[in-house]
């Protein structure tokens, strides 16, 4: 995101907070900003250290990883907000990127660690972002101290999603670890899929754990803000519902190759799946307010039948 874009977004955020008081509705050319109606009416941005960020990035990996847990979760990535001394919110997350090496398996070429990104830039990298308050009574200073400690130790990214080994960490393991320093109990782990083809692919990516901690399984309180590339929250809800429909259709007999295709060492969405995910948010481009869950589900499923065929 450009500096101009960042300024517009942050300025817009403050505007949206004020809009919550005055009843105006603000929209942005790149991202929308929504207020939690129960947020404070002070006019200040609602961000505080220790808040939990859940997000969806564009591309095939958000779909691939959303199929991995034994039950559906809406988000595949998590992070933490830490305010810098000047009062600007930064997002700390555990992330990795592909850097070609002599390794013969993908995990050997994934390198990463704790990343520190201004909130506005972080939003610019995603389709949809939600920010939540952490569980009540969390010691935010201790959370921040733990984040900084892990950052100083240069803890590396764990491509294997192994929650039992904290020498390396994956995204939600990092968040849970930092929140635990603030007094939050870790949530229970969630078993991973038994789908044979997906297990094969996950193993190739280095994931051999039988359970893990999906980002959206993190304990949290009320939502304080949401950002998306779409003009309203209904579009984002439709996108997440489309992900749920893909999950529903991915029964144990399905090959992961029905959704994704291999291109050299990378994967990409097959065209019908990409079209379905593109069109689902478009169902609500002109929506006013949020649709009822049942209506949303019916419309997204009807679109799935049209684009992907009946099940």
């Amino acid at each position, binding site marked *: 995101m450009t500096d101009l874009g960042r300024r517009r977004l942050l300025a817009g955020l403050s505007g949206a907070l004020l809009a919550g008081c005055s009843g105006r509705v603000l929209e942005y050319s790149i991202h929308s900003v929504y207020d939690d109606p129960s947020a404070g009416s002070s006019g200040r941005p609602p961000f505080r250290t220790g808040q939990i960020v859940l997000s969806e990035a564009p591309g095939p990996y958000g779909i691939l990883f959303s199929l991995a847990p034994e039950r559906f979760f809406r988000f595949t990535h998590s992070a933490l907000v830490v305010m810098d001394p000047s009062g600007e919110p930064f997002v700390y997350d555990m992330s990795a990127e592909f850097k*070609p*090496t*002599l*390794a*013969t*398996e*993908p995990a050997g*070429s994934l390198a990463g660690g704790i990343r520190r990104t201004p909130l506005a830039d972080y939003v610019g990298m995603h389709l949809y972002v939600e920010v939540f308050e952490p569980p009540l009574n969390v010691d935010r200073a201790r959370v921040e101290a733990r984040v900084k400690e892990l950052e100083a130790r240069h803890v590396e990214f764990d491509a294997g999603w192994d929650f039992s080994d904290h020498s390396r960490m994956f995204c939600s393991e990092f968040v849970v670890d930092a929140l635990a320093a603030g007094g939050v109990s870790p949530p229970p782990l969630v078993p991973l899929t038994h789908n*044979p*083809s*997906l297990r*094969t*692919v996950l193993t*190739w990516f280095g994931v051999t754990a039988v359970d893990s901690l999906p980002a959206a399984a993190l304990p949290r309180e009320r939502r304080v803000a949401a950002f998306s590339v779409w003009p309203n929250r209904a579009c984002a809800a439709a996108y997440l519902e489309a992900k749920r429909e*893909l999950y529903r*259709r*991915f*029964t144990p*007999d*399905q*090959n*992961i*190759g*029905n*959704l*994704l*295709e*291999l291109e*050299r*060492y990378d*994967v990409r969405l*097959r*065209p*019908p*799946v990409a079209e*379905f995910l593109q069109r689902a948010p478009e169902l609500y481009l002109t929506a006013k307010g949020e649709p009822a869950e049942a209506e949303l589900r019916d419309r997204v499923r009807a679109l799935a039948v049209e*684009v*992907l*065929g009946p*099940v």
Partner: protein
Amino acid sequence: MRRAATVAVLSLALAGCIKVPDRVKLSFCAQPAPSNHFGSASAARSCCPGPPRVARFGHYSEPCSR
């Protein structure tokens, strides 16, 4: 410019080190209709055309074999 090109070529060469096992290739096959729930059955033919691939992968099994 030349440095960027060198890096790009080197990256491609190193990326070529990654081997895709047959079992992974099989997992990325699209299944034929009607068992494909994602509208990609038309892609199944290119991945699972029949006997030649069976021989190549050595352990072809359901759902790609027909």
